[in-house]
């Protein structure tokens, strides 16, 4: 297969995250709903993406902090399930995701008003935090698909995280960076589409790296 040279190189960025505490805590579901509507987008992002960064391997935790708190502290299993099931990949901005989370809680409180009466014990409140992201270029640059897959094997897991998750939803690019580059710079529309179709939220980060590598290697072989 002739390796196509990309119109523009792909520069791998890495991204690191510092957690800032907002000093805001919710002791019941009404307060949780109120603050979900008010806190900065960086906080909604933090509480829906933190699990990906903390558990690089599969864990038994539900995939967002709201759901975890609702089931373990508020003991509202049904609401927790509804929150855990929110399909983040369907939302292209934190604003939309925030609305979905808020309306899910609001709807539940309408259906089960008694849930408003339940309070968390002292010390078990939900603490709102936000993520401060630091983004910086790495030394890995790919000029074609072959170089791209080699770099993908070497870069830190934080780099893969940035290009797949953060770019799409937090920076509101609408798609992951890898697919965008493959489509616009390499002309690999089919492979770009295949990668866009992955639901990355159902993978561990290392699992995601392996999946991407095998897709691209397969594509190179069949080329």
């Amino acid at each position, binding site marked *: 297969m002739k390796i196509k040279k990309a119109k523009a190189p792909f520069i791998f960025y*890495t991204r690191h995250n510092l957690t800032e505490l*907002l000093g805001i805590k919710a002791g019941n579901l009404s307060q949780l709903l109120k603050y979900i509507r008010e806190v900065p987008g960086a906080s909604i992002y933090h509480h829906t993406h933190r699990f990906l960064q903390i558990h690089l391997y599969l864990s038994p935790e539900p995939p967002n902090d709201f759901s975890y708190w609702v089931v373990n502290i508020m003991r509202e299993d049904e609401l927790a399930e509804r929150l855990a099931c929110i399909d983040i990949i369907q939302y292209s901005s934190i604003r939309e995701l925030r609305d979905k989370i808020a309306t899910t809680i609001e709807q539940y409180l309408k259906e089960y008003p008694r849930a408003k009466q339940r309070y968390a014990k002292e*010390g078990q409140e939900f603490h709102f935090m936000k993520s401060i992201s630091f*983004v*910086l270029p790495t030394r890995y640059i790919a000029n074609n698909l072959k170089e791209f897959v080699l770099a993908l094997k070497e*870069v830190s897991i934080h780099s893969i995280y940035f290009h797949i998750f953060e770019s799409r939803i937090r920076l509101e690019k609408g798609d992951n960076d890898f697919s965008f580059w493959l489509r616009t710079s390499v002309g690999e529309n089919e492979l770009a589409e295949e990668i866009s179709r992955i639901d990355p939220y159902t993978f561990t980060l290392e699992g995601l790296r392996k999946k991407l590598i095998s897709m691209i290697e397969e594509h190179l072989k069949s080329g």
Partner: protein
Amino acid sequence: MANLNDYQNIVGSAIIEDIKLLAERLKGKRILMINSTAVGGGVAEILNRMLPLLKELEIDIRWEVIKGGEQFFDITKKIHNALHGKDVEIGSQELEVYLETNKANIQDIDFSADVVFIHDPQPAALIEARGDVQRWIWRCHIDLSQPQKDVWNFLKKFILKYDATVFSAPSFSQKLPLRQFLIPPSIDPLSEKNKPLPQEVIDKVLEKYQIPDDKPIITQISRFDRLKDPVGVIQAYKMVKRYNDCRLVLAGGTASDDPEGQIVYEEVKAAADSDPDIHIILMPHNDLEVNALQRASAIIVQKSIREGFGLTVTEALWKAKPVVACAVGGIPLQIKHKYSGLLCHSIEGAAFAIKQLLNNPEYAQTLGRNGREHVKNNFLLTRHLRDYLLLFLSLFYDRDVIYL
């Protein structure tokens, strides 16, 4: 002393590369760390490991330790206990000694730095030395979730003058009009306390302290401090002992800023009541021996009533040991109940959990394995080092997404 490349085998080269990239962005900034003890206790331990690595990254960093007399450290111990929520009375004269000692240190310390990083309450009042363009951070290692109000209000006057605070767990944060960051502490996998040990070394330490390896060893490693509830551990052991033959090891030293240690040690000895299977070891600071005792143990206990982060739990999990610990301070960040250890809330709860683990060794092994993986991903020194670099950088920006 280990260098950054030594960590690659554990965390991978990409993580180390990322750390180097971040450090480059701090070139030219001078950092000053200040705390109250050079040895003993978690803070000094982390600083001793971290500073050489920061220097290797060519960060211009210094570490100063404040000086104070016995009375000053008696008072700061009281402040420490009061911030942990204990009912402690601190007189205005005592507060005066605290302020005077801080003032005396202001005269002695060279504060020339871009970022001044103060650890814990002892040196908090040094903020009065703040220069116009400096950034000051207060790093609180204490569980501040239920502080004694008047003592916290006294300290708060100083904290409000800082640019940012850092806490080890979300529940420690306070309503403050300044930035608050969450940075859990860490352990060093290459230190004497955590590196892998040959069986002969472990056996020698057991021999030295006359601990026969004839039955499962339950261990709590902690300073002799009431907040670590060593007497509660003895009571839990006695409940277990009725059904499962085992030994109990309570081992620890005292930090130079903790004058209460000897008294608590005597209380623990009295509670043990000369049981030959209880081994109470008041040991001088010896990381290798702590490592050996942890590795020789079947179960590690941390029955703290209050806890900062609970680094002894991190150490035990890193050694893939099943841990029974109270759900206080930073411990729930480290242990997910029934997944990477067992959490308890009482002496009876601790005893029940110990029995479960002794009777189900495979289950105990699974918990230990999961615990090690969690520590590897989140609580090793390299993650901590990265967080501190990010913290220093964050002081020079006020956006949520920062392109460096």
